[in-house]
């Protein structure tokens, strides 16, 4: 099993959600986060006082999938979240040891 974590631009969330539905994903977890990468931050100016804002708002998506689904999911996110401009984000894929559905106690593949 794999855990797919993607950091994307907030306004791309709906597109990504739709793309994930199309490849059969039935559940995702979304968090509002802040951070910076190559895009860096930006400056804001208030009556001549300049502030450097290092951390930009982004959205973090987490999806647990079977090993076979992982490539399709990563590709779906990559296509949907792509604008071609700096700051589009990154996708990370980890190995996932165990999954438990709390309601039934089902494990791993059955719990996904």
């Amino acid at each position, binding site marked *: 099993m794999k855990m797919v974590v993607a950091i994307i631009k907030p306004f791309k969330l709906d597109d990504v959600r739709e793309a994930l539905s199309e490849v059969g994903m039935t559940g995702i977890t979304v968090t509002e986060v802040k951070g910076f990468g190559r895009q860096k931050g930006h400056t804001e100016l208030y*009556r*001549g*006082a300049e502030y450097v804002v290092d951390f930009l708002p982004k959205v973090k998506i987490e999806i647990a999938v079977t090993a076979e689904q992982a490539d399709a999911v990563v590709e779906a996110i990559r296509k949907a979240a792509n604008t071609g401009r700096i700051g589009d984000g990154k996708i990370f894929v980890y190995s996932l040891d165990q999954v438990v559905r709390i309601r039934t106690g089902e494990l791993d593949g059955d719990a996904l």
Partner: protein
Amino acid sequence: MKKLGLTTLLLAAAAPVCAQETPTLNAGDTAWMITATVLVLFMTLPGLALFYGGLVRAKNVLSVLMQCFAITALVTVLWVLYGYSLAFSTAGMEQGVVNFNSFIGGLDRALFAGMARDSLVLGIPESVFATFQLTFAIITVALIVGAIAERMRFSALLVFSLLWVTVVYFPMAHMVWSGNGGLMWDWGVLDFAGGTVVHINAGVAALVACIVLGKRKGYPTTAMPPHNLTYTVIGASMLWVGWFGFNAGSAVAANGAAGMAMLVTQIATAAAALGWMLVEWFFHKKPSVLGIASGAVAGLVAITPASGTCGPGGALVIGFAAGVLCYFAATRLKRAFGYDDSLDVFGVHAVGGIIGAILTGVFASADLGGAGLAEGQTIAGQVFVQLKSVVFTLVYSGVLTFVLLKLVGLILPLRVSPDEETEGLDLVLHDERGYNL
């Protein structure tokens, strides 16, 4: 120009009809002045409170609203007790004679002594006149809040406000507006709606206060961006609307002077908003919302003394000059000298007020579309009178503000502790937070 001495006017109001006739109530003027009074109160609550509240950090928003609210209540009570009397009592005043009562009124009108339900001033009830003037005292004190925001202890601010309005504002209003025998009235200063009394006065007090208190912890290296510019724009818009009560109301009548005051107020404000926007656009490549709103306020300030005497052309020049110059005052001057006038009270109100006061002397001239200077007065002569009043106000208000703050500092700490400042005044001083999201 504006508030003639009470005794003079009780006579003068009736003069055109018949010298012997007793003054009668003018219903049209009264209706307008009640409206204007409400508009000026609206400038402070919630106009100025929101304008300032949006500019501070989220942890201090309530402290600013609280300061504006409490000042409104405190100054109102003082106005009843002795404020109206100190500002507008004409006892002991004599035209051309400088005596104690040229600086401050006596206590003969304390607790509104002598004011009956049907007392009239300038054809309107004295009760309306007194309430109208009260709203000017309120906003002047509230303006200072912008310079000491985010660090002054609430108790110290209340004591300071009590002393400042008593020792600085009431005498200033008396010297400029009480009529023949008032110090600056007799100089012939043109201050229709309060350029010296309100804006330069509050602006220089703000500068002194922010220097005496010291910078906010972390200024200027820590980012302190405004927490809600939407509030600030709403507040600035309310100030713009309310200011028609301030300026057009200062005619104390529903007449041509009030109408022209309204027009020039609108023109100067628009010119200043554009002026600030354009100069900021030029220097920083982007026009900002805070910039255009600040420019509008600068224009409102600058047209205030001129609104009774200048014409539409003069208003364009006064407004544009204020927008451009206040931009430099609020952005460059403050940084060059390193003082922490948190919300730019000096840069907008004192600088805008001084520009307005001086240009008032120029654009009052009938040759430049104004209402005309006094008999035998030249533009240069009038500008000199304006300058003299500006310098007097800067010195009088500046020195006394310094002394009063030092006095308050002897009995109360002026500032919250550094830890409390970090935590935010809302929680530390009021046990509340502005946002429970």
